[in-house]
């Protein structure tokens, strides 16, 4: 079984991506992301988990510099391979995107341009960042399509997106992301829109690619089943904050934040949830965070909520590499 936890991380010490205290505010009235910090190391899959609306996709877009107008981003550090990205111009960011940092999205059905062939869309990334002729780019595209398990790559290059199934399109998106040998791949819910069997194939592909290419992957998902299969490290997000971050094995073995525990109780994760525990659900929804909010955002839904939860929440360590945000000491 290609469970990530089984073969263990081959992690390089220097982080590929460093994020410290990332904040995003929309239209001055909604705090979508409130001080997120995380590292992604070479050869490591870092999963960012949370319910929809918790700010995980916005975090990914912010790292890519793809936030729309009306979003304000700030950070203490946002570094790729040690280079600060916050001060880069749009032009300099565009040089990184698609080249050193690639991204794939949730909706393979709409993420490819319906008006151009697969080959043209794959080749243009290479031509943009590496130059060289279309011939070279198309050869590389055909090679990568074969690598991601697309049959008859030469034929696919001449096809249009509408001629391919969802699973095939997601493979095309992955191959396209690999065109320039990126060091970091950000995958925003890459399997959510796909059939269950196709989901498993795509996940296996990502794991293989990482092993072979030494990619750093930031995988955004709401699915703890996915996390259990591929993650080396997990950050759990709630209402714009990372409430717990730990190596995957530690997190599943000893979840510390009440939200993480509640999440795990909701999902039957193979080998983690025991038969005798009932499957739960968390009442309520993720609140919309407005500027000036203090205290723990989860306290309204938390079964352990206390009066102190309205105060600033301390960051607690549960081991050398395992942090969580809570008043409770486990």
């Amino acid at each position, binding site marked *: 079984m290609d469970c990530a936890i089984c073969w263990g991380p081959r992690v390089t010490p220097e982080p590929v991506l460093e994020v410290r205290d990332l904040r995003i505010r929309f239209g001055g009235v909604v705090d979508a992301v409130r001080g997120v910090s995380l590292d992604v190391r070479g050869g490591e899959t870092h999963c960012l988990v949370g319910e929809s609306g918790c700010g995980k996709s916005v975090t990914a877009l912010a790292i*890519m510099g*793809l936030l729309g107008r009306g979003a304000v981003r700030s950070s203490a550090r946002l570094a790729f391979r040690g280079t600060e990205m916050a001060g880069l111009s*749009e032009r300099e*960011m*565009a*040089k*990184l*995107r*698609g*080249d050193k940092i*690639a*991204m794939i*999205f949730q*909706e393979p059905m*709409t*993420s*490819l*341009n*319906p*008006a*151009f*062939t697969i080959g043209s869309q794959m080749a*243009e*990334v290479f031509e*943009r*960042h590496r130059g060289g002729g279309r011939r070279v780019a198309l050869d590389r595209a055909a090679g990568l399509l074969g690598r991601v398990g697309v049959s008859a790559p030469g034929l696919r290059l001449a096809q*249009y997106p*509408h*001629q391919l199934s969802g699973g095939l399109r997601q493979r095309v*998106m992955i191959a*396209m992301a690999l065109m320039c040998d990126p060091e970091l791949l950000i995958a925003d819910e890459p399997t959510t829109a796909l059939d269950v069997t196709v989901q498993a194939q795509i996940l296996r592909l990502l794991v293989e690619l990482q092993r072979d290419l030494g990619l750093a992957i930031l995988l955004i998902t709401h699915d703890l089943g996915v996390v259990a299969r591929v993650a080396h490290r997990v950050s759990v997000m709630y209402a714009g904050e990372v409430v717990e971050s730990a190596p995957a094995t530690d997190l599943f073995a000893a979840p510390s934040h009440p939200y993480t525990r509640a999440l795990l109780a909701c999902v039957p994760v193979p080998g983690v949830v025991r038969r005798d525990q009932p499957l739960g659900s968390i009442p309520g929804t993720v609140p919309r965070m407005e500027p000036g909010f203090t205290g723990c955002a989860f306290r309204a839904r938390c079964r352990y909520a206390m009066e102190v939860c309205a105060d600033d929440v301390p960051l607690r360590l549960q081991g050398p590499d395992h942090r969580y945000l809570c008043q409770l000491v486990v």
Partner: protein
Amino acid sequence: MLTYLLRRFVLALLVIFTVLTISFALTRLSGDIAVAIAGPAASAEDVAVIRKTYGFDRPLPVQFVEWVRSAASGDLGRSYLYREPVSELIRDRLPVTLKLGFAALMVALLVAIPLGIVAAMREGSLVDRGVMLVALVGQAMPGFWLALLLIIQFGLRLQWLPIAGAEDWTGFVLPAIVLAFSAIPALMRLTRSGMIDALSSDYVRTARAKGLSRASIVMKHALRNAAMPVVAVSAVQLGALLGGSVVIEAVFALHGVGFLAWESISKNDFPVVQAVVLFLAVIYIALTLIADLFNAVLDPRLRAA
């Protein structure tokens, strides 16, 4: 695709036949056509002669079958006024109207597409509101009145351009601008809404994630998709421009098909009116067919269907 085109073609033939019928009925609306041709000064004998010469004494169905049969073979009848075959009259006048129509469409596209793109890129901004205001003004502007204003300003006061006729290309400048005004609002709104959809689409987000240049994102990835309906509507608009050029040709004394039609209408030259209506309808139908073909070329999804 082939069956679809075949269906469209058969439908087009049916529409043309209907227009043939309508244009025939149109000229018989006034009651006794011979009286109208002869004019108020004619005697009863004159009218009788005219009736016999042009075959108006035959039963209507016979006249109709005759009209359909000759129209199908390209014979659109003879003008009472010019005593020439109508097809030759139209052929002589067509270049002027075609030049005017194409020039107007070019002006309209050159104004509408860039403004539509700019408005879409700054949706909701003052620039966007300004562009939408241009569309509203264009929609409310009576073409013939704008023509007169431009004639006063550029023809009379500044004396930059001729006020009538088409000796050379300068004669087409003002008419083309005025005619373009009627097509600009629709094309601009369409470009704008198409670009807004495209720019907020997932595939444009992908293009940005690929690090493509802004020019490539807007002009290639977004515009290509937004252009499909614009191309289709442009063809239809060209048909409308050719049909609507009657008023403009009359104001600027441009001797095109529209002017011919206006002249014939006011002089009761029925074969010409009948033929021009049919001719413009056929052009319109052909243009909508071309628009469909164009769309199939631009949109790979339609090609397979």
